[in-house]
């Protein structure tokens, strides 16, 4: 892996979104990943619809939570994702109104990624932003800087929030992951969370995944 990487600088990341009062982080994490994959494979950055997943992914539970693995399947089975403009976010579940004609992107498959953070970094640098899930300990009060909670306080066994790794690097010799959150730009560092890299902090490495676009 190169020593640092940031997909934001390469135009692969849409603006920070806001999930509102709804536990739909899984949808934002997955659409963020698909946005990146589509950009890297097709050269166009499109902001994609989370609402489509809330309404039409019947395996996941909309605002009550969901799993990226099921969301990839739903996108594949539905026949793609519409754009944010065509199927805009409401923050609560509504009747599915997906139209295959309006789908702008598709995915072919999804893969689980290595738990080795060095390999994850290499994957990110070559393949694009990845969906991850972590224990959100402390994030309610996070403002800025690189978070590195004590392991017993932030166990990798209590994963409860999904986000999108968009890059990595070092700040004053402290290695970090740059993670796009979906709580709006008025949280964290303009909507981003920075987490210690290399120590399995908060289980950042346990649920990494990505869609595959051929």
């Amino acid at each position: 892996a190169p020593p640092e990487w940031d997909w934001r600088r390469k135009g692969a990341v849409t603006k920070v979104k806001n999930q509102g009062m709804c536990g739909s982080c899984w949808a934002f994490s997955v659409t963020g990943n698909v946005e990146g994959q589509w950009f890297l494979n097709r050269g166009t950055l499109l902001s994609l619809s989370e609402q489509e997943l809330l309404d039409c992914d019947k395996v996941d539970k909309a605002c009550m939570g969901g799993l990226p693995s099921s969301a990839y399947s739903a996108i594949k089975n539905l026949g793609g994702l519409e754009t944010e403009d065509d199927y805009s976010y409401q923050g609560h579940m509504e009747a599915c109104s997906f139209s295959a004609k309006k789908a702008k992107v598709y995915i072919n498959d999804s893969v689980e990624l290595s738990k080795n953070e060095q390999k994850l970094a290499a994957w990110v640098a070559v393949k694009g932003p990845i969906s991850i899930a972590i224990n959100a300990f402390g994030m309610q009060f996070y403002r800025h800087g690189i978070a590195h909670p004590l392991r017993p306080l932030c166990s990798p066994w209590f994963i409860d929030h999904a986000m999108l790794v968009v890059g990595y690097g070092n700040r004053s010799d402290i290695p970090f992951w740059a993670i796009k959150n979906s709580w709006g730009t008025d949280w964290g560092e303009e909507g981003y969370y920075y987490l210690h890299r290399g120590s399995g902090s908060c289980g950042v490495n346990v649920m990494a995944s990505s869609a595959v676009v051929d």
Partner: protein
Amino acid sequence: APASPEFRAAGVVGWEPPTRELLGPARFALDAYNRGRAAGTRAVLGTVRGRVRRAGQGSLYSLEATLEELSCKDPMVCQLPVSKKTLLCSFEVLEELGKHMLLRQDCGPVDIKVTDVRNETFNSVLPLSSREPFPKEFSVKIASAFKNFVTTYNRTYESKEEAQWRLAVFTRNMVLAQKIQALDRGTAQYGVTKFSDLTEEEFRTIYLNPLLQEQSGKKMRLAKAVGDP
């Protein structure tokens, strides 16, 4: 979805009478708490407040309730007057197809001395596990920080009681943020955020995703590491 106004409002002591809808799950949680306790030592329900989220045929209740239990467990040997111990509990109860399931229970003692409704300093509304009230200087700083928070994040509360309750939550959260700060080994700064007036319970229920813990989704194939032939 956000709680409807009837589920909001009210502080520790200013709680409104529980709506009928909250009582069923609250009683279920109380029964679960009392399971295995001998008659006479069982806790009774005090006040209840909470919110409900609905999805499909299910409802998830996040409740905060006070329970009263005798501090002396054996009435035969208790000295009079018998004092009551008050517990502040957080419960999460799932109701689906008429059946209840207790997902979470977290109870701790409340210091009644500092929950006097007549005293309007925010020490007075804090259910503290510690018996020491905060120093006045700290209270003044927190009150000022809360005022800034309300302005910055454009918060409005429906009643004075709710504002008082939110101030109490905010205060507890600032203490918690300081503890998290002290235990962080990185360079992160913790403090006031737009979520600072939410209880940990509310935050988890509204913004987080409990399904991720189960990690029982569709098994995906493992990606080849980059550079692998």
